């Protein structure tokens, strides 16, 4: 029943997409300056139908309609409600439907909120966006249909992988999708801008809010994924430079570059073609990431259900997109005059873009390098954290300094440098760094530079914040993001240097001592829960010097459907540090395998990342207020 209903809606959507394109083409003959009502209505139908079809799928998950394959494979009637719902997008088919929905929503709202822009530009953007929608809809219906049925109807579902049954991972895909699927709208707009020659400031104004939305959500999405990895994977880290993680970071760098250079286009009417490249690149990278992840070409610690036929379809679609955008770009490319002074805000934004592209290339090369070596030399290799750490970290130091100075430079031509002030800030940063190493612990040569440059950015942003408060400027979005970025790097640096990690094996009742810590394995209990059994350990942690006495309770969970064992870390978070224990059992032995970690400032890393994206939302809010 639900399956037929959902399928009908999807086919209706296919039809609507074609109709929208058909009538949009017809609009060119129409000499009115506004787009006719008909198209608005069609788009309204389109968005309504696609949302209803998604709600249908969610309903199927909630009522556990196992006649639908997707539900059968990814749900179970005993699962908590939240994870029944999040199971909807926790699988390939459902997430692809989410993909189509976001394409459609962005298409609709772009149409509504671009009313004061040229008609042709809007129409062609709509057509291109609908071509994208149709492409993905075809893929959805004919290759990965979420409403496919299975006969006879199974009595019970296979269940969702327990590791995905988690609040952070429940919101992770929607956030990330708003981010990188949202970038489709400025892909379409950029193509349209090339076709209609609707360029310059007006073009920048029409897409800047969409860039902000996608960037802010992408930041939050990456954060949710990291938090999940931190407490679910049991390594205590939050970033592993895994291909799947890199795939989400690549469009983020392109977006960040775009976010900055679009200001130059808006304010100075320059860098038009560069902005276009970034618009096209962002969405292309998003689709590339999806291709790499879903096709199973890359070996990743994260699992996605892989299927070569999916990969092939996305690859064909991706090639068409790249071909069309490159073709159009070189057709329209004109050598334009870049006449700005080297000492100006514009130059510093270009420097930012240089860094963003550098990081992007680094991560892209690191991610796809294994594919090339395997094809060319038949060697199987993997690129791990050491590569990224050696290439990226030293460059961050330079980047942070430029990031501090850039916002102080004036547009067009900067007249005076306040070298005196910069020097004072530098001295203060070095002093604080010295105090940290003196009172706590010294760290590596490079870490000193990282901490100093992060402090430099923080202090200079704080001064800016103070100045804008004095002037009663409400728009402090840029300062918020930059300040938060400084804190992010600072806390990551401190966290990296002051973490304590110890791996050992213990039997029940035994005690392990190291440094000032002693850890005692005091108890082991078996407990039944709604959809799993848990073996819960009890560990007493003492710090002899600091009078610390804490209990932590890591678990080994045994899920029935699907049959899986997971290790749940026990984390005691506080403002200053996290204590972290994971416990695992080993075959034919009384020993339990224990990992103990002390991770300082973890909470502040999350908070910093939230504030980075908050800056984006603040700017969005500010822009919206200006327009009314």
């Amino acid at each position, binding site marked *: 029943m639900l399956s037929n209903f959902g399928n009908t809606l999807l086919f209706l959507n296919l039809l609507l997409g074609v109709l929208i394109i058909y009538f949009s083409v017809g609009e060119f003959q129409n000499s009115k300056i506004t787009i006719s009502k008909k198209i608005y209505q069609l788009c309204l139908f389109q968005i309504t139908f696609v949302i209803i079809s998604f709600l249908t799928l969610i309903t199927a998950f909630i009522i556990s309609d196992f006649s639908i394959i997707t539900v059968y494979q990814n749900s179970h009637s005993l699962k908590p409600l939240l994870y029944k719902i999040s199971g909807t997008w926790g699988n390939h088919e459902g997430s692809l439907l989410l993909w189509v929905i976001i394409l459609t929503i962005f298409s609709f709202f772009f149409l509504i909120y671009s009313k004061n822009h040229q008609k042709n530009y809007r129409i062609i953007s709509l057509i291109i966006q609908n071509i994208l929608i149709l492409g993905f809809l075809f893929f959805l219906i004919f290759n990965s249909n979420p409403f496919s049925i299975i006969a006879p109807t199974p009595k019970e579902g296979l269940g969702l992988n327990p590791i995905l049954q988690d609040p952070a991972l429940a919101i992770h895909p929607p956030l990330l999708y708003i981010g990188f699927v949202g970038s489709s709208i400025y892909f379409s707009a950029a193509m349209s801008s090339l076709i209609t020659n609707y360029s310059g400031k007006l073009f920048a104004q029409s897409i800047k809010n969409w860039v902000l939305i996608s960037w802010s959500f992408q930041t939050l999405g990456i954060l949710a994924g990291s938090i999940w990895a931190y407490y679910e994977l049991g390594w205590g880290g939050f970033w592993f430079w895994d291909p799947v993680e890199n795939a989400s970071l690549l469009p983020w760098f392109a977006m960040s570059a775009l976010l900055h250079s679009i200001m130059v286009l808006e304010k100075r009417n320059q860098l038009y073609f560069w902005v276009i490249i970034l618009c096209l690149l962002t969405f292309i990278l998003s689709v590339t990431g999806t291709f790499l992840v879903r096709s199973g070409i890359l*070996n990743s610690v994260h699992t996605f259900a892989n299927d070569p036929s999916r990969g092939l379809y996305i690859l064909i679609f991706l090639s068409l997109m790249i071909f069309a955008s490159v073709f159009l770009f070189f057709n329209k490319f004109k050598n334009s005059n*870049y006449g700005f002074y080297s000492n100006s805000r514009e130059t510093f934004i270009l420097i930012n873009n240089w860094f963003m592209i550098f990081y992007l290339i680094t991560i892209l090369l*690191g991610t796809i*390098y294994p594919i090339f070596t395997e094809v060319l030399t038949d060697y199987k290799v*993997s690129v791990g954290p050491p590569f990224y750490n050696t*290439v990226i970290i030293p460059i961050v130091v330079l980047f942070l300094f430029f990031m501090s100075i850039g916002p102080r430079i004036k547009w067009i031509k900067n007249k005076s440098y306040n070298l005196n002030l910069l020097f004072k800030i530098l001295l203060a940063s070095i002093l604080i760094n010295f105090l940290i190493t003196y009172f706590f612990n010294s760290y590596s040569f490079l870490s000193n530079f990282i901490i100093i440059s992060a402090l430099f950015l923080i202090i200079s942003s704080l001064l800016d914040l103070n100045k804008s408060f004095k002037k009663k400027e409400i728009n402090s979005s840029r300062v918020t993001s930059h300040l938060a970025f400084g804190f992010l790097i600072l806390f990551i640096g401190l966290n990296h240097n002051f973490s304590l990690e110890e*791996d050992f094996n213990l039997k029940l009742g035994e005690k392990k001592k190291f440094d000032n810590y002693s850890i005692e394995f005091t108890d082991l209990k078996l407990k039944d829960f709604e959809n799993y059994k848990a073996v819960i350990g009890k560990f007493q942690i003492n710090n002899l010097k600091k009078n610390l006495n804490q209990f932590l309770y890591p678990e080994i969970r045994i899920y029935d459907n699907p049959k899986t064992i997971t290790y749940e870390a026990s984390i005691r978070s506080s403002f200053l540090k996290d204590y972290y224990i994971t416990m695992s059992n080993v075959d034919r032995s009384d020993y339990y395998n224990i*990992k103990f970690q002390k991770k300082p400032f973890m909470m502040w890393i999350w908070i910093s990342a939230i504030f980075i994206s908050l800056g984006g939302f603040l700017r969005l809010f500010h822009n919206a207020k200006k327009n009314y």
Partner: protein
Amino acid sequence: MLTKKVQKRVSFLSLLLISLVIAVFFILKSLTNNILYFKSPTDIQLNQDIVLSKKMRVGGMVKKNSININDKAINFIITDFKNELFVSYSGTVPNLFSEGKGVVAEGILKDKNFFIADRILAKHDEKYMPPELKNIIKKNVK
């Protein structure tokens, strides 16, 4: 003759380009220094020019009844059904680490029969197998 303005622009653009080329060169250089090769126990036995001190990944199955644990380390044997490799590891094992199941270990070789791992890779899914491992098993188990 080029005007001064054009000259400035050309030098600016070429500076940008050169810096990018240099950057990519360094990226590639450190890439070749930092890659990890994936080998099976048989690869290690057959390979003459293996660098012992270089980090690598080894994959295969955990041999039945081979896991042996004490308070410091977990010792086990990785087999690809032709050759075997002793592994010593101290650290946490992922939840799907078990006898008779696939495993990927990262670390350095002490000699051709003994491997010191500093990481055992986690896989989320019991049905999932790294593509490399699948190939090895396909080759050896018929």
